[in-house]
């Protein structure tokens, strides 16, 4: 059951453009990869909460990995060890680990956060995921790839070719040989996800899960603000915060996205 919590930041690491905040969560706090926390940002509580995926630190502790995008995320990145965060969570539906011969994780930018957590979960189950991760350029990564390389089969992409493959995480994915039955787990910008969905075709969308980023107000399914179009007769919407943020690619109506 989710709850409203306050947790202390016990460790802070900066990896390139992203800041990792390791949280001292209460005993019994359990979360699945792909779930998120809805975090109060800014001192006065006058701005809406901001959703951030749960990730894990090198020692496997639950953490956030925040890339500054605006006021809220910048505020978060400026927090110091010892300060407390107020959040609701864990919220939403996480990834389901499929029964497949190959597990491919595809991360764009800060999309690495839930996938690192997922990779850890997979390793606990003795699976060997491979991970394609794309960023703008080498500096954006910082030292995180070195750490991740010890955790899974990692390949990198940068738009400018300064590190790894030249192109996006998606280009990297396209360039690699995969078995037809590989299960795919993706998190990143909207363009990346829809590009992937198109590329996958109908069969592939059955085995692909995507974590979508939608602006959120409540984060718990009450306001219907985070609607994503789903493939049903009524052309209706699902709430990304509650029915997602992880969806099977086939569940979403990519035409209406």
């Amino acid at each position, binding site marked *: 059951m989710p709850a*409203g919590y306050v947790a202390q930041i016990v460790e802070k690491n900066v990896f390139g453009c992203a800041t990792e905040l390791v949280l001292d969560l209460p005993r019994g706090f359990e979360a699945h990869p792909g779930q998120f926390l809805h975090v109060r940002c800014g001192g006065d509580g006058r701005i809406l909460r901001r959703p951030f995926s749960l990730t894990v630190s090198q020692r496997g502790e639950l953490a956030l990995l925040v890339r500054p995008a605006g006021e809220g995320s910048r505020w978060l990145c400026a927090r110091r060890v010892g300060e407390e965060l107020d959040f609701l969570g864990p919220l939403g539906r996480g990834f389901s680990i499929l029964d497949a011969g190959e597990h491919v994780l595809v991360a764009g930018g800060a999309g690495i956060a839930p996938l690192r957590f997922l990779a850890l979960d997979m390793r606990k189950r003795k699976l060997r995921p491979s991970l394609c991760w794309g960023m703008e350029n080498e500096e954006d990564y910082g030292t995180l790839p070195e750490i991740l390389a010890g955790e899974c089969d990692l390949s990198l992409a940068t738009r400018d070719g300064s590190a790894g493959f030249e192109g996006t995480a998606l280009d990297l994915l396209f360039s690699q040989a995969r078995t037809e039955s590989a299960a795919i787990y993706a998190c990143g910008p909207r363009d990346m996800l829809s590009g992937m969905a198109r590329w996958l075709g109908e069969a592939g969308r059955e085995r692909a899960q995507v974590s979508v980023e*939608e*602006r959120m107000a*409540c984060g*718990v399914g009450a306001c219907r603000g985070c609607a994503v179009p789903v493939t049903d007769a009524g052309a209706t919407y699902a709430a990304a915060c509650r029915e997602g943020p992880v969806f099977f690619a086939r569940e979403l109506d990519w035409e209406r996205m």
Partner: protein
Amino acid sequence: MEAGLRTELAGIRMQNPVMVCSGTWGNGREYAEWIDPGALGGIITKSVTLRPCPGNPPPRIWETPSGMLNSIGLENRGLAAFLEEDLPWIAGFGVPVFVNVAGFSEEEYAEVAAEVCASGLAAAVELNISCPNVKKGGLHFSSSHEDAARMVSRVRERADLPVFVKLSPRLNDLKGMCAAVARAGADGLSLVNTIPAMSIDVERAVPRLGNVTGGLSGPAMHPVAVLAVWEAYQSVGIPIVGMGGIWGWEDAVEMIMAGATAVAVGTVNFVDPGAPLAVVEGIRGFMTRKGVARVGELVGLAHRGGFRDEGKGRAPGSG
């Protein structure tokens, strides 16, 4: 001193004057994980329409300074699902349920209101004739006093529960509108709905919301809502539920002093699910500190010259 939070709204008894706004609390399930719905003064459910309604295309929300825009557009699963699954569940907490009703024609409103009354599970009907987010319907029904009055009397004929009419603050003549719907049989007013507004992404030069326009809620618009309650209180005798940008107990007390018998909190739920109960506690504390015995004494107090003896913790004036 024990503060008397109990109040009565168009004959409906409430344990305290704090409700939750339509559309900001789903149909209760989501927030029931965080707070006890049974501790609320009442619950106003999300707008229900006769048939299921998919709502507007995303993006549906955008944050603005001290506020937010939404263009949800009446997304709901329709009356049948609501009466079967949602209403019985939410009525189970034993606090009055105000069912917010919307539609795309007068008949639809009347039909939905009648069925809600027939269910025996609601305490009142709240007519949303001020939704800025649907093209046909919504604000359309309050573009003139006559249209609004006709709608109210149509619904009134078929509803045997108190009918609250929810108005927009974007009215040239809010007082005249309040008087018109009161004459047409409204038992109470819900003031206010969001203010029509919009935002543009300058990098792309396109509206931020899929629906182009939306409604502004939150602290930014609170002073506009307070004035609406103030004006309504001056023009009609029926009770008012005050809403719009209530963030803490002070804002709620402000609404009550402006003339609201009860209040409803909306957007703040998104930031703090515990807010409605914090508002209840805050009002209680204020009353104790000021020596106010019943919350009803505060209703409209600012129209009567305020506390006679400010700051000294004495009882209100002619309350």
